[in-house]
């Protein structure tokens, strides 16, 4: 009978809504912490090596790739010939959190971590200097250390002594 089917469908609808009682999809954000996805793109920061050195080698790739041109830095060189940024400045009132800088970075120094809720009264306050950008931790890649992988000689390490590195080939000889 059509009438009974209609009534039972009414009942099914009512039961469906009643079952939702006490469930919620809403996260009361400031009180409850958010569960951000692991690839969330928040505010870019500069990270450090596991041994505490700055990862950034001031190659300017992030600055070059940035579509809004909000990254600006000057390169310096340490006595041990390792490069580092003298100044590093990001204008967050222009940053669009696209993550291209993170993709471009060869040393995994610049990373978009999970900070997203920051607001200021003045535009000028959004210009972050290096001291504000540099964090103490290693970010998303806790064990990565660029100079331990690269074929560059350091004071305590010669070429070919890095992780997963083979001894360099003698280019003067054709013998294997």
């Amino acid at each position, binding site marked *: 009978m059509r009438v009974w089917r209609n009534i039972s469908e009414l009942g099914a*609808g*009512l039961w469906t*809504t*009643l079952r*939702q*009682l*006490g469930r*919620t*999809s809403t996260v*009361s954000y400031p009180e409850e912490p958010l569960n951000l996805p692991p690839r969330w793109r928040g505010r870019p920061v500069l990270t450090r090596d596991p041994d505490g050195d700055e990862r950034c080698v001031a190659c300017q790739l992030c600055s070059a790739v940035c579509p809004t041109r909000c990254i600006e830095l000057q390169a310096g060189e340490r006595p041990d010939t390792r490069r580092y940024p003298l100044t590093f400045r990001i204008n967050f009132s222009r940053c669009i959190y696209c993550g291209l800088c993170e993709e471009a970075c060869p040393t995994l120094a610049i990373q978009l971590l999970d900070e997203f809720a920051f607001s200021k009264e003045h535009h000028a306050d959004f210009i972050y200097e290096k001291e504000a950008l540099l964090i103490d931790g290693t970010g998303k890649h806790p064990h990565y250390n660029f100079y331990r992988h690269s074929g560059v000689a350091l004071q305590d390490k010669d070429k070919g002594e890095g992780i997963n590195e083979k001894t360099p080939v003698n280019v003067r000889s054709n013998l294997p």
Partner: protein
Amino acid sequence: MMLFLMALGMLFTTLVLLGVAGFLVFAERRVLGFLQNRLGPNRLGPLGVGQALADALKLMSKENFVPDFADPVLYRTAPVLVAFSALASFAVVPLDHHFSWAGNWNIGLLFILAMSSLNAYGVFLGGWASGNKFSLLGAVRAVAQLVSYELPMGLALLGVVLLSGSLSLNGIVAAQNLPYIVLQPLGFVIFLIAGVAETHRLPFDLPEAESELVAGFNTEYGGMRFGYFFLGEYLGLTLIAVLTALLYLGGWHGPWLPGWIWLLIKTAAVIFVFFWLRATLPRPRYDQLMALGWKVLLPLALFNVLATALAAALWRLA
């Protein structure tokens, strides 16, 4: 002195009712939220109760205007009519055996029906006087709805009156040794459906119909005039819930607890059903509502009255 005290009492009753209506607005949003997987307003005060007060303050502080194209007298009268008729109906609603203004009045039920018709006038005039197409359509729907639900509603109530032999709400509740929902299940369902239509609530909120008619009859209203319509709607909702509790669910009869608490519990349960319906059902077209009223509810209600009368007569003979 006596008069003064009575006036004071009436003022108090009115304020309590307005408070209840204001609270219901908040409660509805909250309950609706829970039924729809949301939280609802929960920021202001404990559990968000302050929202009711904030909404009232907002409405009261808004500008009181009359649009150029509206009929000024009717435009001003309509909201008052709606709120007044809803408030006046509560005069005959008893909270307990001897706790009411006119619970013993021997035409109580009739008075409520009359006031509900007056309420429909308020809605209709408000929509008409606004001078807006949407409002007019809402008003037309309100009238179309009125003619289709009032008859079944009155006939459904007739069953109760036949059984109890009284038109006063006190008398009807006193006559219920068994809640009338047992004796009048059909009448109960008809009354509930007609009650939803009567209060213009979803699924029968055709005069308002936000999604098609903007806001129907109260499109042109703002500030406290809109507030009056709102109060009227929620008072009407409370009224229908109280009536359902009084007429069909045994009123204040119940074990252990004092009577008025039983009445409040039953009323709250009916109000929850109203919210629940709103959270679940979509709005029909208004010709569908009219078809339901005339082709289904009216014959059923007539059958209900006849069957009740026959059963009552046979009962008396036996």
